[in-house]
């Protein structure tokens, strides 16, 4: 094997390794995370309504200009759960949970979620504690089990016409990213057992349609 071939093969093998290491490590070292991109917004523990993407502007260029967006950042989800409550009007809206790197982990829209929007973001340890306590919040909220410490909740609402924008921005601004969590136990359901010997009346059979 000639010297050039040996160098070439070693370089190729090394290049493959470097390529794979960069691709696999990039999400961990990349500083362009969407969490940090929201540093300028007052979005810690409350919803900040983002400015609409403007023409020829890099900021927020990734957002649909026909949607209005609100972002709430949460941190230390491993220490305490976060409850989101929002009363949203009869437009297309959606809510989603992102990790720091902008991966969409959970989403609902106005048809898949019951109104009002009520999400409980909870880590695995807190979830089992709440389940042991039979906390009332588990009955009220949609439980989102997340194995992350920090992330973002994003609300989107459809802006059919620019004149609707102020009302929709106010609607998203009123969403609560720090709603109280009711940990009181749910009372045991009262089970009524019919007295022995008494057969519950059956509903008469429905006559077959002609």
């Amino acid at each position, binding site marked *: 094997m000639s010297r050039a071939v040996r160098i070439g093969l070693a370089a190729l093998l090394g*290049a493959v390794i470097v390529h794979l290491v960069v691709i696999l490590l990039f999400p961990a070292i990349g500083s362009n995370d*969407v969490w940090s991109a929201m540093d300028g917004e007052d979005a810690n523990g409350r919803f900040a309504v983002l400015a609409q993407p403007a023409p*020829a502007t890099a900021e927020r260029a990734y957002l649909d200009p026909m949607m209005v*967006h609100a972002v709430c950042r949460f941190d230390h989800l491993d220490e305490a759960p976060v409850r989101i409550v929002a009363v949203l009007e009869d437009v297309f809206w959606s809510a989603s949970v992102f990790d720091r790197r902008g991966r969409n*982990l959970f989403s609902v829209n106005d048809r898949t979620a019951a109104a009002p929007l009520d999400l409980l973001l909870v880590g695995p340890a807190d979830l089992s504690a709440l389940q042991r306590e039979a906390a009332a919040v588990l009955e009220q909220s949609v439980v989102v089990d997340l194995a992350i410490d920090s992330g973002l909740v994003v609300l*989107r609402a459809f802006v059919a016409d620019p004149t609707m924008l102020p009302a929709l921005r106010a609607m998203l601004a009123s969403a609560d990213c720090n709603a109280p969590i009711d940990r009181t136990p749910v009372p045991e359901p009262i089970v009524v057992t019919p007295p022995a010997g008494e057969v519950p009346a059956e509903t008469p059979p429905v006559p077959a349609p002609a």
Partner: protein
Amino acid sequence: MRPIRDLALAVVIAVALGLASAAVAINQRANAGAATFGPWVARTGEAAGQADPYARAAAAATIDLPLGTAEGLAFAADTDSRGRRLDSRCTYTIAGRSLPARLWTINAYDGAGLLMANPSGRSGFHSRNLVRAADGSFTIAIAASPQPGNWIPIAGDGLLLVLRLYDTPLTTGLAPTDLSLPSIERGACR
């Protein structure tokens, strides 16, 4: 000395080649595996946290809040239906029928991926303000000069179209077998 020099040369080439190929893969958004419908490339792979490594790396390189499963699916097109790169000096006609979504929007971006700047301040249409033909089909003209009907004015360099389908069965794998996203036909060029 020679083996050490050879090793150093191999390492230098390996690092350069590895970094360059990784940069290319990340910049091209690693379209491998992304669903394409004609000129439209789906921005998938990031939903529900089930991203492949290339999509994850690309997501880390670009700030984005991608649509989730319950929200919808975004598609980007930088070529026309015949595969020619979109050019803001040309006129284009987007033609389509009803799309499998509760709501959809289409917007024009410039070559840098920024929302298209134009005096009217209108960068696109949505499924509820679009003028349609009696049979439900629609056409959108993309041109620098005024056009009758649905017109998206464009200017400057480069052109990228982004189609976002909201609340669509595509995200749950229930894609209609005859899914056809709008065609992009090139007209006259300046």
